[in-house]
């Protein structure tokens, strides 16, 4: 298929349709409203469902209701909207329903700004709502990768019966790049008859299904949490993804960076290499599960004496880098937020300074 030039937000909407998800509920918020605008036109063409809900709170539960009766369903929002959906995310995760949430991050906290940021790392990876739960979190660095991750998110959500979050930023959503929609990522939905409330007649059963998140018996609730915990451990065993960049040479420092920020780092690494300074990068493509082993191995190389987490936040992923490195070398942080995106030149200076220091 020929490449088409598309804005990230529109490509995300189209990718969901190509993945066989014809149900979309959302509430407008900058910088991702183009997804809703695109799907408002596109869903009727494919006989799909488009609904603008009255709030992100309500949208979260529209997703829950639809997912609980077995439909492939997704929503998109941006940081403050995801905060409002986090209540539903806690319920959906506990009730083990597959669904896809896209967060095109903007600056925070509070109303913050509308420019690109990565301030929702904790919210996405540590469980932004109440209780012990995790989302499967994927972080694309380009429009093409956003397309592929959206398409892969649905089968992953169904594999784990757990919400998947695509964590992009304002640039992912707003920029245009050439994209193609790979046919091989179209996966048929799984059979959900053993748990979904899709109506007994639908599945030809006389046993009713119940989707709930209430466990008044502490033993039962503990057991349920252990089951969820095992699921998260399985994600860590089976579905960690990352890109290793320039890890073949005798690098002195390892950068860990994701999403848009990692592209800036890639340019900085290329430029440093031209100047004779070798720096490697691990780019987590899944933020949960986090590429702990890859980072640990990468800092174990002979000449590597420093790890730097570079993020568009005030130091969130750095905590996961620390628990990956486990004292094998110093772990530092560099970042900006609020819509400021560090330039390659800045990153080069930071790396040089830290290596000299």
């Amino acid at each position: 298929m020929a490449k088409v030039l598309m804005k990230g937000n529109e490509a995300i909407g189209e990718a969901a349709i190509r993945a066989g998800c014809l149900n979309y509920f959302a509430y407008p918020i900058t910088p991702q409203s183009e997804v809703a605008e695109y799907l408002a036109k596109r869903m009727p063409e494919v006989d799909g469902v488009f609904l603008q809900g009255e709030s992100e709170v309500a949208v979260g539960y529209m997703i829950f209701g639809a997912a609980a009766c077995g439909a492939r369903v997704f929503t998109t929002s941006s940081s403050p909207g995801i905060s409002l959906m986090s209540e539903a995310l806690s319920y959906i995760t506990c009730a083990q329903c597959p669904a896809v949430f896209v967060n095109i991050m903007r600056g925070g906290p509070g109303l913050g700004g509308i420019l690109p940021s990565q301030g929702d790392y904790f919210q996405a990876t540590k469980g932004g709502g109440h209780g012990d739960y995790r989302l499967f979190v994927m972080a694309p660095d380009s429009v093409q990768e956003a397309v592929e991750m959206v398409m892969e998110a649905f089968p992953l959500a169904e594999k784990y019966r757990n919400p998947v979050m695509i964590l992009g930023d304002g640039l992912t959503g707003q920029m245009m790049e050439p994209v193609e929609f790979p046919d091989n990522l179209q996966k048929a939905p799984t059979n959900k008859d053993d748990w979904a409330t899709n109506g007994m007649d639908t599945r030809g059963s006389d046993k009713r299904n119940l989707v709930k998140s209430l466990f008044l018996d502490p033993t039962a609730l503990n057991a349920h949490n252990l089951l969820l915990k095992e699921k998260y451990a399985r994600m860590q065993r089976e579905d960690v993804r990352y890109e290793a960049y320039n890890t073949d040479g005798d690098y002195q420092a390892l950068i860990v960076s994701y999403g848009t920020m990692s592209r800036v780092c890639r340019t900085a690494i290329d430029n440093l290499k031209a100047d004779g300074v070798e720096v490697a990068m691990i780019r987590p493509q899944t933020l949960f599960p986090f590429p702990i082993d890859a980072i640990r191995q990468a800092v174990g190389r002979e000449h590597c004496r420093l790890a730097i987490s570079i993020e568009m936040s005030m130091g969130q992923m750095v905590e996961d880098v620390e628990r990956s490195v486990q004292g094998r070398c110093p772990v530092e942080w560099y970042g900006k937020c609020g819509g400021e995106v560090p330039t390659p030149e800045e990153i080069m200076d930071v790396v040089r300074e830290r290596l000299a220091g």
Partner: protein
Amino acid sequence: MQSEVMFAGFGGQGILLSAKMLAHAAMETGHEVVWIPSYGPEMRGGTAYCMVIMSDRPIGSPIVKNPQHLVAMNRPSLEKFAPVVKPGGVVLINSTLIPVRAGRDDVDELAIPVNDLALAAGSVRSANVVALAAFVARSGVVPIEALREAVEMEFARKANLIPLNLDAFNRGVKAAEAG
């Protein structure tokens, strides 16, 4: 080889669209390309700028401090971005609206009365096409014919606008050759 073009002007001058047409032409001629808009709460009349990055390799940073080229449609844009253009780059100046120059002797300055030429073509709204065509004719970042096709494709669904925009296109190319 990577090159970057900063398009800048008032909101409503078609900044995002001209950048998109260049991005399209770049994609069709086999380049890697990224189109990065400024986006803000103002819908009309504010400043708008948009960067197109073209390369023969996968593009790293979408954030570029020093673009190779500049297309400045109004004075604030020229004053803001002219100082950061890389030496040797093309700086296109819309001289209808900009009475000053870049003030640099290490760039290829091209002053064109973009709005006047657009009016002569039939509508000031085609100013962005005049500027884009002139810029590409001068810089050669993509073949001029590829750009012409991208312009035609952009207006394919508003076919009545194609003659106007092709006229604007030709005036832009001619002005660049004369300048």
